[in-house]
């Protein structure tokens, strides 16, 4: 099954994506990740105001079969979470890059974004 890897995003090896605008990063899981998980039944989001470091586990996504940690690809303060995906976890499957995003973070180290995978690099990682 081929997975979507939008060209305007950056990616983490652990299958999160980041969209950056005005120093704020929106974070979610990739289309490949939601395919692998299938049937997302629960999403646990971080508290707003929490400060996270790049690579820190700060959310959990649960499929029928298993619970998986979600790692923040970048450092900063969580300024908003997507309540819609907590209320309707299937959004992580149906709209992984839009309505199914997880949280927004104010970047404390904007340079970290440059260290994330490009769409081409992520595509080759997942063999897409």
């Amino acid at each position, binding site marked *: *099954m081929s997975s979507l890897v939008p060209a305007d995003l950056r990616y983490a090896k652990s299958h999160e994506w980041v969209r950056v605008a005005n120093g704020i990063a929106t974070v979610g899981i990739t289309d490949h990740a939601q395919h692998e998980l*299938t*049937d997302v039944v*629960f999403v*646990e989001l971080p508290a707003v105001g929490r400060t996270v470091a790049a690579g820190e586990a700060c959310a*959990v996504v*649960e499929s*029928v*079969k*298993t619970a998986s940690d979600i790692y923040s690809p970048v450092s900063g303060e969580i300024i908003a979470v997507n309540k819609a995906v907590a209320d309707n976890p299937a959004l992580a499957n149906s709209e992984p890059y839009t309505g199914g995003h997880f949280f927004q973070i104010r970047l404390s180290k904007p340079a970290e974004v440059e260290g994330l995978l490009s769409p081409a690099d992520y595509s080759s990682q997942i063999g897409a």
Partner: protein
Amino acid sequence: MSLQRTVLYHAHQQLGGKLIEFGGWEMPVQYSSIVDEHQCVRRAAGVFDICHMGEVRVDGAGAAEWLNSVLGNDIRKLAIGQGQYTHLCNEQGGTVDDLYAYRIASTEYLLIINASRIEPDVAWFRAHLPKPGTTDVTFVDESARLGAIAIQGPRVAEFINALFQGPSLAGTTVTAATELKKNQIGAWKWKGEEIWVARTGYTGEDGFEVVAPATIIEDLWNQTLAAGHTVCIQPCGLGARDTLRTEVCYPLYGHELDEITSPLEAGLGFFVSFDKGEFVGRTALLAQKAAGLKKRSVAFRMIGKTAPPRPGYPIWSNGVAVGTVVSGTQSPSLNCGIGLGYVPPGLAEPGTPIEIEIRGRRFPAEVVKKPIYRKA
């Protein structure tokens, strides 16, 4: 150790099955999605690869007596062509395995054992065989020669007779497979090979398990998918098998049962026959019964929206950790978290409030009557 593959490995790959490790085997966990396959079995029909499971054949004039000395249930209850759920217990009353025993001929028995337990079971059986020359018992491990598939769901009866035509040739005498009653088994021929068809399953739905030589399993699998096309049969993986069995509270070895847990503690005392005479573990099980059980298996349901409970999560009651979850998932039928766990007997009554600890926080749940899911 490299993983074993069933004869259906390439079929699973072609069908897009996602393969995982299970009990030393590389098996499909899902093809489309666990929820999709689960609903398909609850509403219509699904087919499962269960070739990883083991088969042993016991034959001879002394077979029944010997089996009764190692198994918990009373094998003498079986008419020819009938099967029963039973346990292999150790001297302490712990469970070596849970299995199905079929009487396929007057003195011949077919046992279906768990994939992860083939080696320990076969070693256990062999160690307990009668001394050579004392009584006529032949024990053969057929696990490598035989394979099996499970065809499950309320609409299976609509096409099963198209697969196995004509009357049965051994076991229970019937003119068609759909005449088999629950736990009955009959033999048919498939391209010249003897196959055994039993009306049983692990999903809580009507259905059949078919045991056949591994050489013809792929053909059987393909013909099942073709015959079931009219009811939209789907291949189903271990993920759906687990959610289906958890909803109806069927035990899974390594979760509800293990070598330090007795069938009594697991709530399976109905399948232990104390009045049939001596069998391995009987003394310990009677002592357990007399002294009172230390733990009991319970089914529970999460209250409200929570993350799904998982095996290993602690169970709490009144601020005290009292037990452990052994099976847990999100129920696709009920759309809530469900599970099975062990608690002290005083907390086993349906309606008892408990809490499940999920990632360091406790969430309310309630002990419920088994099965958790019952067909409307």
